[in-house]
């Protein structure tokens, strides 16, 4: 494999598929897109199998100075990127399959947008040059704008504008910060920048500039308001990509840039990050409780889950960061699945209003079962992926701040409340409308969509080691980089105290 530009090949594949889609008709485009995404998934799986756990930090590296003196085509992945690449590649064929019948208008363009999107998202995780990262990061706006605007719901135009301008405004300041950093460090290589010590007084500004971008993307309270609009109006597969991968770009940005590059600023602004996380968990969970639109409810729950991610990251502890990463992976799968669940009934009844449904467990038992599984995963039931991530993130947070941990934990209770409420209204009781009572159960295609998702959610819940192992060294390196700056926790542990014992166990990860 040495010397073979496997990452470039993976990036080129969906682009070629996209061009092929544009040249065929609707039926051809669907098959081209499905085959392309499946081949990409196979190649990414190959990456995982060939990834040397415990090997060098950056693997499969490529570097071609294509773009003058400014930046180069530098790719390479570590374990964290690998896991997010897997998530992306895994969700894409599912998205294509979910759009198989739901999208009837302008299919070739739709499939092309999704394939371009895949290249851009994979590229963001692979980029080893800071400007290449920025270019790809920003580029995702274009296809997503089109996906929301062309194939979205009734209010799609407003949602598309809001999505585009909000995220653009967030990211532009990051570019200036990047320019400053490159002028200071005289390198655009991310691995080199990771070990550059920026002056502490500049770090705060740089951190805030990056925060503006990642906070919008993630999204964090109070800049999350674009998300419910975008989610609700986007077509089902668009919501899956938004929740599954696009939000993770923000989370990836924090762990790749903000924490290791600006450790001092991260420590100084820990209160801000914790504060925003706490507000986000409580506020957005309460908002989710009163939603009447299914997609909106899930969108708000996304914001709440992402607050676990920020709380975990900024705990400066190994468990916290491990947990945050697992929450990202798990949320990518679970919220994606929940949007698909909504999509199933929306395709049949064309309404997202919870009050129009009810009693679906009677006429759609298979659907109710799948729905149940993902509801439980979203709540964080042990045995599902949601539990592992949330538990680790909370353990990490607790080491740093008991109050933050206490308040963020209420998110689990509130999460259970709104998810179970949703499930109750949808699946139990009697049907509120005659149409809802007549809905047919899942088709074979829909089973094929949910089966792999369910399998991975359980796999991650039962044996998370598979997912933690590739990331372990990278998280260790990150923790080592930031621990000198780590603020003191408020736990006041004494070595002899039995209370400290569980913490050391957790340090080995979950077994």
């Amino acid at each position, binding site marked *: 494999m040495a010397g073979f530009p496997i990452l470039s090949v993976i990036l080129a594949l969906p682009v070629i598929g996209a061009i092929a889609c544009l040249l065929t008709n609707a039926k051809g485009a669907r098959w081209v897109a499905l085959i392309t995404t499946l081949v990409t998934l196979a190649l990414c799986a190959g990456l995982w199998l060939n990834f040397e756990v415990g090997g060098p930090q950056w693997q499969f590296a490529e570097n071609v100075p294509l*773009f*003058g*003196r400014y930046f180069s085509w530098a790719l390479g992945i570590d374990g964290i990127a690998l896991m997010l690449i897997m998530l992306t590649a895994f969700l894409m064929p599912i998205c294509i399959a979910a759009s198989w019948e739901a999208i009837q208008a302008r299919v070739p363009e739709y499939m092309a947008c999704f394939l371009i999107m895949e290249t851009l998202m994979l590229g963001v995780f692979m980029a080893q040059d800071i400007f290449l990262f*920025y270019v790809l990061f*920003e*580029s995702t706006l274009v296809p997503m704008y089109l996906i929301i605007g062309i194939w979205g719901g009734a209010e799609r135009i407003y949602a598309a504008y809001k999505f585009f301008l909000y995220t653009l*405004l967030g990211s532009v300041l990051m570019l*200036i910060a990047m320019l400053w950093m490159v002028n200071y460090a005289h390198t655009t290589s991310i691995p080199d920048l990771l070990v550059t010590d920026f002056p502490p007084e500049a770090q705060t500004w740089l951190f805030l500039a990056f925060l503006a971008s990642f906070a919008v993307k993630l999204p964090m309270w109070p800049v999350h308001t674009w998300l419910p609009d975008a989610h609700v109006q986007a077509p089902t597969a668009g919501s899956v990509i938004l929740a599954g991968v696009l939000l993770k770009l923000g989370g990836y940005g924090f762990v790749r840039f903000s924490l290791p590059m600006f450790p001092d600023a991260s420590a100084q602004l820990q209160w801000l990050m914790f504060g925003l996380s706490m507000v986000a968990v409580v506020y957005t969970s309460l908002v989710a409780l009163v939603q009447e639109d299914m997609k909106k409810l899930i969108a708000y729950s996304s914001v709440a889950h992402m607050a676990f991610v920020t709380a975990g990251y900024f705990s400066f502890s190994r468990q916290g960061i491990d947990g945050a990463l697992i929450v990202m992976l798990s949320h990518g799968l679970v919220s994606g699945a929940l949007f698909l669940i909504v999509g199933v009934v929306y395709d049949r009844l064309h309404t997202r209003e919870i009050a129009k449904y009810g009693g679906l467990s009677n006429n759609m038992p298979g659907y109710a079962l799948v729905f149940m599984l993902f509801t439980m995963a979203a709540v964080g039931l042990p045995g599902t992926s949601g539990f592992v991530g949330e538990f680790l993130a909370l353990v990490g947070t607790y080491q740093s701040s008991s109050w933050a941990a206490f308040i963020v934990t209420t998110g689990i209770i509130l999460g259970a409340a709104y998810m179970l409420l949703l499930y109750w209204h949808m699946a139990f009781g009697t049907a509120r409308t005659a149409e809802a009572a007549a809905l047919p159960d899942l088709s074979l295609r829909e089973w094929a969509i949910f089966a792999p998702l369910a399998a991975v959610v359980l796999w991650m819940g039962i044996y998370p080691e598979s997912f933690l192992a590739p990331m372990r060294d990278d998280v260790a390196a990150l923790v080592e980089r930031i621990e000198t700056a780590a603020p003191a926790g408020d736990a006041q542990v004494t070595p002899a105290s039995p209370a400290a014992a569980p913490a050391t166990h957790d340090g080995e990860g979950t077994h």
Partner: protein
Amino acid sequence: MLAHDLLIVLPEEVLTLSALALMLVAAWAGDRAAKLSSWLAVLAFVIAALVLPGIVDPGDTAFSGMFAGDSFAAFSKVVIYAAAAASLLAAIGWFGRAGDLRAELPVLVLLASVGMGIMVSATDLLTLYVGLELQNLALYVLAAFRRDDTRSAEAGLKYFVLSALASGLVLYGISLLYGFTGSTLFSQVAAGIAGGLSTGELFGLVFLLAGLAFKISAVPFHMWAPDVYQGAPTPISAFFATAPKLAAMALIARVLVEATGPATASWQQMVIFMALASTILGGVAAIAQKNIKRLLAYSSINNVGFALVGLAAGTPEGISSVLFYMTVYIVMTFGAFLIVLRMRDQDGRPVETIASLRGLSRTRPWLAFGMMIFMFSLAGIPPLFGFWPKFVVFNAAVAADLAWLAAVAIATSVISAFYYIMIVKTMFFDEPAPAYGPTRDPVTAALVVGAALFVSPLGYLSIGPLDHAATIAADALFPAQG
């Protein structure tokens, strides 16, 4: 010595002689020869570009230092000639359709280009003025080229009156600078103000800069641009938005660096003000536009503001970023205008409303796709190439310790992104309006494809050579570093 001087201005001689010859052809054969003349003019541009001094060699000055044929001038002239030639090609098809392509058109474009060539080469305030006026005189006539169209005549008149005012300002500024420094040569002016800027010199600088800002339509001297762009025939608007913009921008860069370089701190504030005012007003005022040509006029105001950010840096890197910016901007804007040229209703009449673009992605998918590329590119959204010129100007500003300026300017770019994506929305999200009539014009189609490929992500591959050329060109203005 004279032979040497004449060799330096060889491109101008080629263009002038071609213009005179084509004038005779026009007098002899009338409008029948218009198409042939236009192609011959394009050929003249190619020849002129081939004999440019300063491309492979460092170039030299002529006429006792009043005219520079250096790399900076060479870079600007290549772009100017290319833009002028492309505008002519676009004009052939557009005017030819209505049957009012007249033989004077190539002559005027050639003369305007000679003027622009002199502008970018001027190293003396009087050479500057001669070049400026030669360009302006040709452009007044071009703006009013459709004699039977009142809007076109109005555009010509408006342009003439306001431009004459600006020329007056420039002349007054020149006279002040000359009076206080004792010379019109840029190098002597710089030597005169090296010890500090006196009040008179400062006034001279302000008037000069104000007059020149009119030519690039920077706020607050931008009022003419939307009216003239809207009124002038579309290929002429495309010409206005491209070559003269670069010529005036290059002229400003040379004046500021070579003549008033010692007073950088004084003009930097003015440039920063114009930059921010242009990006903001160019963004806000465009939102309410209904006419696509007016919108593109505001877009040009907006873009000039970003180029000025690079100029404000005042460093070789900043000047090189300005050249880079204007080059890519010209391709993007020209591409957008080429699409506008194809907006005709079923009867072949030109349409200019934005509303007529509704649903273009259904009726003419490739046309809509091209327009989308140009719009996102003008908005500076990666991965389109329009992002990169913004990147280089901001990079230059940050390197010159103007990070705050870069931050404010980039934030204003979000405002302008709104109206660009509004066009995309109109074409892709809205229900179709009546389809445009067919256009058959392989030459402009090839130009559109070429421009679209350049602003597509493939354009990033040209960063290396383009940046190299722009850097050499910019270094020519800074003899100490060069």
